[in-house]
């Protein structure tokens, strides 16, 4: 077990390295840097001026060298100008380099300075992640039990009416992307002019103009059912359909196994057959799918947070990308990659515990 985790962690580390390098390389392509120079200094710079600005701000060295600086394995650049020093690790200018650390990168905890938010990247990401983790938590709380219940209910009696109705529901939700379902939700539940809100307001059943709030901004301070239900449902709905389909397939397969017949012919009642004999076996396959949903949630989070103006990780990512905020973009990608890889590791380990037959190697 320990050796396995160690090995996987090693592979994970390499993957992080490779993926961040790719992101670093893409965000540091010359046109991007030119844009950066123009937005940081002056829009009307000539090509020669851009080149000299980049050179003076440490962008002149090869990409790999700069990647090393960003990581913190290569000493940060410094430049002497009229007896004062500036450099990667220096804010403003200093007279002497003695108190300045040689390296400042990811490994030293220096994630850089966000050009959009004018704050250290680490702070921005920390705040955004705490926002998003609330969203994720609620999505999981809603999504996993609902999806598993739906899947098990429809899978335990294949071909029954319950199965057909629930499967139909699952297919519809999976076929609806977040940007469609989110908009529909807003129109139906959170619009003062269309949907059900005007009707309810007219009848005096709701206090405000709309049933749910169309924006989740207020949820950043205090989460309530009314401001958080729509974003949570938008993300969860998609996953519910997907996981429910998986659970159903796995459940129908398990229900047709011989050991289920054995249990039935032992005199075990149907509910006990499902609960004691089928469930654990049926959950092995969906478990992996649920863990795979985490990366997918990041995806949904980008759309939903933008749509509902909830300033979490997804929203921050969009801001960083839209404003060419290279350090923030890099920071976001590191977090995303690590998150995905950790869920994969948990999924693999959990699989071994659920399924006593599996050996990992």
């Amino acid at each position, binding site marked *: 077990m320990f050796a396995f985790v160690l090995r996987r962690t090693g592979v994970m580390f390499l993957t992080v390295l490779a993926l961040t390098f790719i992101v670093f390389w893409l965000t540091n392509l010359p046109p991007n840097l030119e844009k950066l120079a123009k937005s940081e200094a002056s829009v009307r710079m000539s090509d020669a001026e851009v080149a000299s600005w980049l050179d003076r701000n440490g962008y002149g060295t090869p990409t790999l060298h700069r990647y090393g600086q960003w990581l913190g394995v290569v000493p940060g650049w410094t430049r002497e100008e009229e007896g004062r020093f500036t450099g990667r690790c220096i804010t403003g200018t200093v007279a002497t380099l003695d108190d300045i650390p040689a390296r400042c990168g990811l490994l030293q905890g220096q994630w850089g300075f966000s050009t959009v938010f004018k704050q250290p990247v680490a702070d921005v990401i920390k705040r955004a992640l705490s926002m998003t983790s609330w969203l994720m938590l609620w999505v999981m709380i809603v999504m996993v039990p609902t999806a598993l219940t739906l899947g098990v209910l429809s899978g335990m009696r294949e071909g029954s009416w319950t199965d057909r109705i629930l499967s139909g529901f699952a297919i519809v939700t999976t076929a609806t992307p977040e940007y469609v379902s989110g908009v529909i939700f807003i129109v139906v539940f959170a619009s003062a002019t269309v949907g059900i809100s005007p009707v309810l307001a007219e009848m005096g059943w709701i206090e405000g103009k709309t049933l749910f709030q169309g924006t989740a901004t207020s949820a950043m301070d205090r989460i309530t059912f009314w401001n958080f239900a729509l974003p949570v449902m938008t993300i969860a709905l998609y996953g519910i359909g997907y996981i429910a389909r998986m659970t159903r397939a796995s459940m129908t397969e398990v229900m047709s196994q011989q050991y289920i017949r054995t249990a039935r012919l*032992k005199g*075990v009642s149907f509910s006990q057959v499902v609960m004691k004999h089928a469930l654990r076996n049926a959950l092995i396959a969906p478990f992996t799918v649920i863990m795979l949903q985490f990366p997918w949630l990041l995806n949904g989070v980008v759309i939903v947070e933008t749509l509902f103006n909830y300033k979490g990780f997804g929203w921050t990512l969009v801001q960083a990308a839209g404003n060419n905020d290279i350090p923030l973009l890099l920071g976001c990608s590191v977090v995303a990659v690590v998150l995905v890889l950790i869920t994969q590791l948990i999924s693999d380990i959990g699989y071994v515990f659920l399924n006593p037959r599996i050996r990992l190697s």
Partner: protein
Amino acid sequence: MTATPGTWDPTQPILEIENLSITFFTRLRQIPAVMDFSCKVMAGESMGLVGESGCGKSTVALAVMRDLGKNGKITAGRILFKGQDLTTMGEEELRRIRGSEIAMIYQEPMASLNPAMKIGAQLAEVPMIHRGMSRSGSWALARQIVADVRLPDPDRMLNSYPHQLSGGQQQRIVIAMALMAKPALLILDEPTTALDVTVEAGIVALVKELGEKYGTSMLFISHNLGLILDVCDRLCVMYSGEAVETGNVTEVFTGMRHPYTQALFRAIPLPGADKNARPLISIPGNFPLPHERPQGCNFGPRCDYFAAGRCNAGDIAMEAVPGGDRHATRCLKWQEIDWLAPPRAAKAREKLPPGEIVLKMDDLRKYYQVSSGAFGGGLTKVVKANETLSFEARKGETLAIVGESGCGKSTFAKVLMGLETATSGKIMLFDENVQSTPIQKRGADTVSKLQMVFQNPFDTLNPSMTVGRQIIRALEVFRFGDSDAARQARMLGLLDLVKLPRAFAERMPRQLSGGQKQRVGIARAFAGGAKVVVADEPVSALDVSVQAAVTDLLMDIQRENGTTLLFISHDLSIVRYLSDRVMVMYLGHVVEMGTTEQVFAPPYHPYTEALLSAVPIADPTVTRKHIVLEGEIPSAMNPPPGCPFQTRCRWKSQVGGGLCDRVMPPVVQLAGGHQIKCHLSPAQFAAMEPVIRIAAQ
């Protein structure tokens, strides 16, 4: 007549099936699976249901359990269990009977145990449901029953998961599970088919003993007539959904009164059958599909005694045979047939003298490296799959390789075919050393010379390619023929060779029966004029009546082409019937090798002796010693020191000085090239008694 529970009179039958008919309703059509089936099982009696696959024997068993699925319906008849009609019972009442009054043991022990539940929990569940026992009480009972089915270390067993046990242990657990509530009726559906013969012998002995101990009645379903003779008091032979003959086991075995029963006995290799002098007689034609059954007698089209206009006129009822012990047959002509007449003389063939050496193996070894531990890593161990394998095979000879699962016979086939390369040693095919050449690097010529017939004909044909195309594909790979027309002609010639109609070239594999598919497999193997053919259990997946025909076909082709046949099998009856020489393997070692007569007569290697005694023989005149091997086959990963067989050998105590524990026995050469790997002295070998005796008639 339906009695209330508790008022059942023990002199009445415990199970009485009256004119039962079962139909499966599919979208396409209605398929009658069982028609007009009747039988009675008295208390303490064991009833055998015999028949080929698709004859409806398992359907009867499931009908007794009332578990026919959504499509199956009982359309007529009654099933009385202790006087209560099961066919009209509600789900709740059935649930009370299932597992407590009637229990079932299944064919695949691995599949019938829940992989994610501990053995103990699965066993303890039964008394908890039916007797409301406490958790600790039922675990204690489970422990006792596990000891009763003679499993070692019951506490460890109860805390194991099914996959941690061997096949034989799993089946013992399934039996224990069935016995947890001390049922009145036990249904065993092919309980040993998936197991090795020596394991089978242990299970059969256990079932018989427990049946006597608890007075349980049994319904024993099997296709193996020998097993039925061992276990049952009465039997019922089924053919295509009908019972065709029923009666006392010895009476039916010695004085059968239905042509199908007779044909069945003539198609199985009993001691005394010989491929040259007394070949098997296969049943002509194929088993009718359920929706294509003929009018009148279902067996009519394949019957030697068929009388047109009479046998196919109308439904035939069961008729009692006077003077018999509830013996009955479903044949109109049973009083006219001369049952004692010898079978029509099949033509005896000359025995071929063996030719030059074609294949020679010298000190072949194959080791695998495996790692243990749930997350990989752990210790790396070496599995010795084949150890010091040396033999030679001559042209036109049949060499049988016998052994139970895990003995290394499949590894040997893989190494020979080039799917794996040997660790050391030499394989000489004619004058070419093919030992370290994997199959990708062998020339088309070598590949076509050395071919294989596989065990399962259902999986080895491409389902989306016509039969003809698949054979032509093989010819192309072997670079046979210079034009498409030549290959087409050769393909048709091959279909003739395996006695399939030429029209089959256009058919898809799914349109063929199992026997026909295996014929295609044989045609493909012989496509390039193979000189050596490895047949890996070529008939074990086939029904008895088809087995004989496929075996004969292999023999005929071999005779014509002078092919060397390496026949891998665990079925000693068929090995005795067709092979010239036999090689017995145990844990990767060749423990005995010699001609068929030498191996099947004393002196034996102790393992061969046990193997021979374990094979059930469907002939009441044969007596055989019962030697039940204790314990499990040791893991090849962790073989015992000294002799590989020492952990289970009954002769071990007769070898002095603890030799067996320490020293690998030498190969002892006996008269006529017979060799045995054993420490026993020549005097002890000479004193061995034969395992099988045929009573003088």
